[in-house]
């Protein structure tokens, strides 16, 4: 197992390195625009000169790597927040993203699994048909459509919630009740798809687990149905479900760009969009590095957690 983990981590780092290199070259080669303000433009030009933006691309890359290794410096923002280190910008924007997505996940996991289990137990009956139909619709409809509907109905028509998330200055913190109240529509909009996806997955896995022969045997040897379902079917069904949940937990940090745009959540996704619109390419690079790392990490987490959860599956262990 240890050898396998080491191999996977090494592979991850290799892939990560290649992606970062290519992205760096592509992003650094983008034409940069100077602000129209002459004084500011001069300052920027000087700073860029000092940071080596005019040097050959390979030299720039080495400077970039050196900055990361020696000072954890991923670059500087020029337009989003003048001369702010991009790492700080990113960290600053993590809390709202994590808050919204984590709450959405906390709501969706129990409901999703419950619906999935319920559907599988009532397979073919009206309960199952209703759940399955709902799941099919809610899985297919794009998340932003929920966002529009939630925003319109709860925020505009009924007026129960604000249209967009409160700024930090009004709410006083990311976890204050006031902030959570304003985040509720966004959390709700994110949950629909999440619940449906999880319910669909759980149902499929549970149906398979319930049909297994050991289920017939456990009933034959006199176990109660509820006991057999809980201990023999659900546990087996959860083996593939838990890794996806682990991946979702990691994905919480990346968040949903479109939901952040619609509800004006000052999160990582919004930072990305602003960086592109303003042509702030160091921030763009930071976001790319961050998204790439999270994506690779969740892939690794899925594979490894399979091994931890189910000792029978030790993939690749020779």
């Amino acid at each position, binding site marked *: 197992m240890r050898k396998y983990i080491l191999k996977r981590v090494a592979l991850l780092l290799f892939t990560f390195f290649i992606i970062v290199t*290519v992205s760096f070259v592509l992003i650094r080669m983008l034409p940069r625009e100077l602000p129209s303000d002459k004084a500011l433009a001069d300052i920027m030009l000087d700073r860029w000169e000092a940071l080596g933006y005019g040097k050959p691309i390979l030299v720039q890359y080495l400077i970039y790597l050196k900055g990361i290794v020696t000072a954890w410096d991923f670059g500087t923002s020029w337009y989003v927040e003048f001369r702010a280190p991009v790492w700080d910008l990113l960290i600053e924007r993590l809390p709202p993203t994590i808050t919204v997505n984590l709450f959405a996940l906390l709501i969706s996991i129990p409901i999703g699994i419950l619906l999935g289990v319920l559907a599988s137990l009532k397979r073919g009956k009206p309960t199952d048909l209703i759940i399955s139909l709902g799941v*099919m*619709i809610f899985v297919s409809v*794009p998340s*932003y459509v929920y966002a529009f509907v939630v925003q319109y109905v709860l925020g505009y028509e009924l007026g129960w919630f604000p249209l967009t998330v409160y700024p930090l200055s009004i709410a006083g913190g990311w976890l204050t009740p006031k902030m959570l109240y304003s985040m509720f529509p966004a959390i709700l909009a994110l949950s629909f798809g999440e619940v449906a996806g999880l319910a669909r997955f759980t149902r499929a896995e549970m149906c398979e687990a319930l049909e297994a022969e050991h289920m017939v045997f456990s009933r034959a040897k006199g176990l109660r149905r509820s006991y057999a379902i809980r201990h023999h079917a659900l546990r087996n069904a959860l083996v593939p479900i838990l890794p996806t949940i682990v991946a979702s937990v990691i994905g919480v940090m990346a968040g949903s760009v479109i939901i952040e*745009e619609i509800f004006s959540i000052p999160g990582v996704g919004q930072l990305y969009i602003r960086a592109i619109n303003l042509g702030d390419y160091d921030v763009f690079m930071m976001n790319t590095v961050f998204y790439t790392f999270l*994506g690779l990490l969740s892939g690794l987490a899925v594979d490894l957690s399979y091994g931890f959860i189910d000792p029978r599956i030790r993939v690749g262990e020779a």
Partner: protein
Amino acid sequence: MEYPKIDKELFRPYKNKPTEELPELSRYGYFEDTFRRFLKHRSSRISISIIVMIALFSIITPLFITRSDTLMDPYYAKLPMRLSVFADSLGIFSGRVERRLGDKGLTRLYAIGVGASYGDSEGDGYSPILGIGESDGRVRNVAVDSYLEVGFIYRTVTKDEYERMTEWERSEGKKLLFPLIADNEYNSDKRDANLWYKTDSEGNAVAKAISGYEALPFFLGMTLEDNYLRDEGGEVIYHTPVGTADAQGMRVRVLYYNYYQYKNGMKPDYLFGTDSQGYDLALRVAGGIRISLLIAITVSLINFVIGALVGAVEGYYGGTVDLVLERVTDVLSGVPFIVVATLFQIYLGDRVGAIPSLLFAFVLTGWLSTANRVRAQFFRFKNSEYVLAARTMGVKDRRIIWRHIFPNTLGTLITASALVIPGVIFTESMLSFLGIVNLGREGVTSLGTLLSDASGIWVNYPHLMLIPASVISLLMISFNLIGNGLRDSFDPGMKGGV
């Protein structure tokens, strides 16, 4: 050992039926069989009909709507749906909007109806007021026909055009030209062609009373004092000259609802209403469906071809090829798609256009999963006996790959390709909404462009968002159901998954 003695004649074939009477087991080939199974699913049938209907809508709509889709009508922008066939008789699809208005606004709307019946006893067929709610002291809820709400506008026309307008009035029996408004102290807004009645400087309607002019409260049937421009004889004036001597123009006041008919030869009928700039939303949605489907299907086909080729080679030969391609796959699938799309747009957007660069972005990473599926299937089949037999007989690699193994992968491949379509439609609309892809810049409308056009203003004009969003949702649900149906039909053993 004693054997029982059995008569020889008992040994005869049991009911030796002639071959013609064998049940027709092998009447259908694999694909025909799959197709039949597919059509047996009610959900697949419904989804296919929905998609066909949406596609037909996108093709037929431009044929039925004779207004040119470049016609932008700034006066009729962001308006809800209206179909005069229903609006005139049943009162539905009437372009109705709710407004909260005080006396001043209400009087202005009311005056449109009254002003339109000038010199005509026909009454107020042009009144934009559909219904008035209870007053809460200051404002009232008013149901308004948003197409009549525009009321009158000023136009500057040439003499020829004026002739044509009067000709149109005669032939149609509708009034188009209305008297101009006097430019005096009773005209509070010179640009507003709807204030034909006397108002104070605030815009409130006034009437002559004993002690000078007094503000009038609003009530239905109120009498407004007109403030038309008149000549010495007291006759109303319909046009005044404007411009220089060589470019003579005439300033006229027209009722926009009728002016629209004069211009377009038809009543304003908008199935889905109008968009933020005054284009027909139905036309734009139709165009959006065409572009979105076109992009999605193109991506799906390209992925199919590339994925099949790469996956087949990867799966069949394995070894170094497989190892290298696996690393390439790792790297390509590790890049977040949003970054790929952004980079393609920034680098290629100006050079080859937004749509091709979007296609490149989709294809760059899209074929990976297709290739993976094909590869997995090849791993499953390449060592089976029949392949071994073929190889022993000296069949060439190419033939083994395409004729012997590849057909086994077609099921998953077709299913996966069908499921690519909703994914692409969704991603395209998301990227457009976020502004990462800007198809609108090139004058192309996709479903995502419509969403991004509506962003920011849609809370006040929900139809701008609801209609494209519903179309996208319908397409996604249908394509997903088709994908599921295909999966179940290709692999009946898998049945049961949602």
